């Protein structure tokens, strides 16, 4: 007597592809939305190679070290710096009087720099960067 062999299913289950598609879409959407895209706009005046010294002396000068702030030569903790700069800028109405020259030492981390420049901008200050220009001197 011959026994009939049952036929095996060789076709892939097509109904599962929609589930796979859905899971892949969710995966790519999650991957795409992880990157941060929020932040803070900052207006900086165009750089001038030779700053006018007579104007600069009237402006507030802020020097940043790794974890401290020095305003016009006086070291200040972060909390009192915020209060002091608000008071200093309060009576200044013209944009050119509200300029705050920020000078950073080379070891200042970005997070500290952003904190302090944020405080200055919130107080109404206009930030300018004071950079040390590199000069090559040939020794004969």
């Amino acid at each position, binding site marked *: 007597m011959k026994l009939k062999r049952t036929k095996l299913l060789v076709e892939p289950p*097509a109904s599962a592809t929609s589930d796979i598609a859905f899971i*892949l879409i969710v995966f790519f959407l999650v991957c795409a939305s992880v990157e941060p895209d929020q932040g*803070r706009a900052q207006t900086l005046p165009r750089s001038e190679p030779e700053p006018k010294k007579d104007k600069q002396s009237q402006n507030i000068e802020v020097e940043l070290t790794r974890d401290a702030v020095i305003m016009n030569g006086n070291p200040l903790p972060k909390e009192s710096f915020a209060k002091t700069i608000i008071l200093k800028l309060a009576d200044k109405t013209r944009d050119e009087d509200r300029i705050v020259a920020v000078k950073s030492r080379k070891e200042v*981390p970005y997070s500290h720099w952003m904190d302090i420049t*944020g405080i200055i901008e919130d107080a109404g200050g206009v930030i300018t960067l004071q950079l040390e220009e590199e000069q090559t001197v040939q020794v004969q």
Partner: protein
Amino acid sequence: MIVKRRQMDASVPAMAMGDIAFLLLIFFVILARARDDSHLQWKPATGVKLVRPATMNASVVIDKYNVTHLNGREVPVSSLSEELKVILGENAAGRRTVILKVHHEVTAIYFEPVIEAISEAGGELHHILEEDKQR
């Protein structure tokens, strides 16, 4: 005489789902590739009152190895200003946004020349930060 109504087949063609999945995959892969600085390693600094930039004309990243990238491509800081001028062209104000992504531990010796270059090229700087939930 009663005529039997023919039954209509209302099943969704499941075989087409595979093709739809494939096309969607290609779409998302291309979308992911367009954001071509996503492979760079950096952790943002924190901040408050953050806003999304209205436009994005160029992207500058300083990664955790202090390397500067313009639109995902490594560039020397000395040529950054010139390259940005080419990208920004004669765009009007409001369409010159340069987003700056700096690793939070990068020091001033690396990020200040980059900020200066963006300013020199006439870019409108927008720092990318992470919301500080503790403040």
